[in-house]
């Protein structure tokens, strides 16, 4: 029809509509966050007297941020979240790559069965499972225990395992064979030769798992019940439920603090995040 370029006006109109829609949906995506940022910089009186979309008098009024940080015990929360993040990432990378190594490199009866057991586990929705996981955590004395929470978080990562298996498939078996000829043990082959080769896959899965762990709040709320001792960044925001529930300038400051690490990671690792998601989705 008009696509041959005969009708320039129509084409400009289409381009205009295209950009309009992009701007509109970007606006929709950031509007809730922008309104939070605006409100986080307002003093109490400003918050009560001006409309939420009116910019604050000063963009350097950080009192809400410091107050939110103290009230929600966010120093402690960041410490806990960092400990959890490091332990879970190290453990799940080791566990995941080792499992993927065995499943990809060794043929043995039960190989397919184990793969299917892990795949089937993804069908079970987490929230429903926590009804009885709670009882098990209770019996293991894992409630209000940071190590207990960390161990539970390590055990549920199937997508990472599939990313690793996919990656192993692309590493030729001749790499292993020549090492075997040299008399290297399987442990040496795995730790010295294959693990370094796996680095891109590890980075990808760490970013995905890292974001997931940092943002996890349902199990953290359920199993780390002592909010004074064991807040994580996500659950520390629960402080604002209740009496503080209408002081949105304070709440918004807390929300902004909690999403800063994700924002920084996103700015620096956009490419890896996108490619990690795509890789995870194809197999998952």
């Amino acid at each position, binding site marked *: 029809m008009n696509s041959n370029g005969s009708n320039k006006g129509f084409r400009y109109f289409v381009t205009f509509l295209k950009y309009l829609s992009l701007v509109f949906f970007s606006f929709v995506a950031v509007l809730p*966050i922008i309104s939070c940022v605006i409100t986080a910089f307002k003093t109490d009186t400003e918050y009560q007297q001006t409309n939420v979309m009116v910019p604050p008098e000063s963009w350097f009024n950080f009192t809400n941020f410091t107050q939110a940080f103290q009230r929600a015990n966010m120093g402690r929360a960041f410490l806990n979240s960092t400990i959890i993040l490091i332990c879970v990432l190290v453990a799940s990378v080791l566990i995941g790559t*080792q499992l993927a190594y065995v499943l990809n490199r060794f043929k043995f009866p039960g190989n397919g069965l184990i793969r299917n057991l892990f795949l089937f586990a993804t069908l079970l929705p987490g929230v429903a*499972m926590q009804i009885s996981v709670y*009882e098990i955590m209770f019996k293991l004395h894992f409630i209000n225990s940071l190590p207990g929470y960390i161990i539970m978080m390590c*055990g549920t990562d199937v997508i990472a395992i599939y990313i690793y298996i996919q990656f192993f498939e692309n590493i030729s078996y001749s790499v292993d064979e020549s090492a075997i000829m040299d008399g290297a043990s399987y442990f040496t082959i795995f730790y010295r030769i294959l693990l370094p080769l796996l680095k891109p896959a590890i980075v990808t899965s760490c970013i995905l798992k890292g974001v997931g762990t940092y943002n996890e709040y349902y199990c953290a709320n359920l199993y780390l019940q002592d909010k004074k001792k064991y807040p994580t960044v996500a659950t520390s925001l629960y402080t604002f439920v209740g009496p503080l529930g209408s002081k949105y300038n304070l709440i*918004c400051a807390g929300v902004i603090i909690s999403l800063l690490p994700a924002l920084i990671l996103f700015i620096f690792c956009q490419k890896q995040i996108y490619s990690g998601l795509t890789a995870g989705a194809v197999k998952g």
Partner: protein
Amino acid sequence: MAAMTQTVNNSGRHKKRTFGEWARSRDGQKVFVMVAFMIIPLVLLFVFTYLPFAEMFGFSFYNMKYTGDRKFVGLKNYIRVFQRSDCFGALKLSLYYMGGSIVQLALSLYLATVLSFKVKGGSVFKGFMFFPYLINGIAIGFIFKFFYTRGFVFDTVLQWCGFSLDNLPYWLKDQSINNISLVGTSVWRYFGQNMVLFIGAIMSVDAELYEAAMLDGAGRFQQFKYIILPSIKTIITLNVILSITGSLSAFEPPYVITDGANGTGTYFVVMHEISHTQQKVGLASAMAIILLMIIFAATILQKVFFKYVFKSAEDEDLNATAKRDKKLAKLAQRKAGR
């Protein structure tokens, strides 16, 4: 293991291998490394997935709390799930979430198609729309409680557009609209992520195809229909399937924003309340088992359906390759003609 039996059988002729020797041999090492590398993940999988799954099944026949006595009640829990209006009725709400996910898929497909071609500032738009996916659930809860509060962000923006505040409903209280408000937050959170997935799929299509189509004078819409859509059919189908099971187990938006108040309690929110607040563990387990059954049934049906779609997709692929060859031939002709 095979090595050991072999040595036992042949013990008459060969020197019998001791366990120590076997352990040092390749076979022994292989078994050792397999056990060492698989024991932890398998124990974790067993303790946190299959054991609880089995326990939940058992719990569903008892009247029990997490601590204290438990009483066997047979199928009573299951019957009560169907009788209680707050349990099974809550599944109706998943229709809202299904509707939402269809809107979300269509929207992200459109945006992915637009962003897959050269667009000024494309990565900035992409970044803005994707970022909500990286925010934690509690923060999203607060952001949207604030967003929907009377006279706050959403109302203000609508007033800019000329609506009067008196005509606007209470977004989270009004039962005719509040579920749609909640579904909106879920769409807001995930449409960027879906878009990134679709962009990944579209990018994997051979760029020459687009060039050929452009030279043939195919418009954007025709390109979308004949090149993009067939090649990303699989990932779309997958996402449709995921969104159906996802809608049945919708949980987060009502849990963090309204706490299930004013008729927004989805099945899982009710189940969470019954198990962890009221501690009626048996009843909650029965609810979980019933939903799992529905999800399994849905998954199996989808697998069958998927197989059918795949089959027809393969037939069409043949057509597609034929078409592509035709187009490439035309392209070559034109180049030669110049």
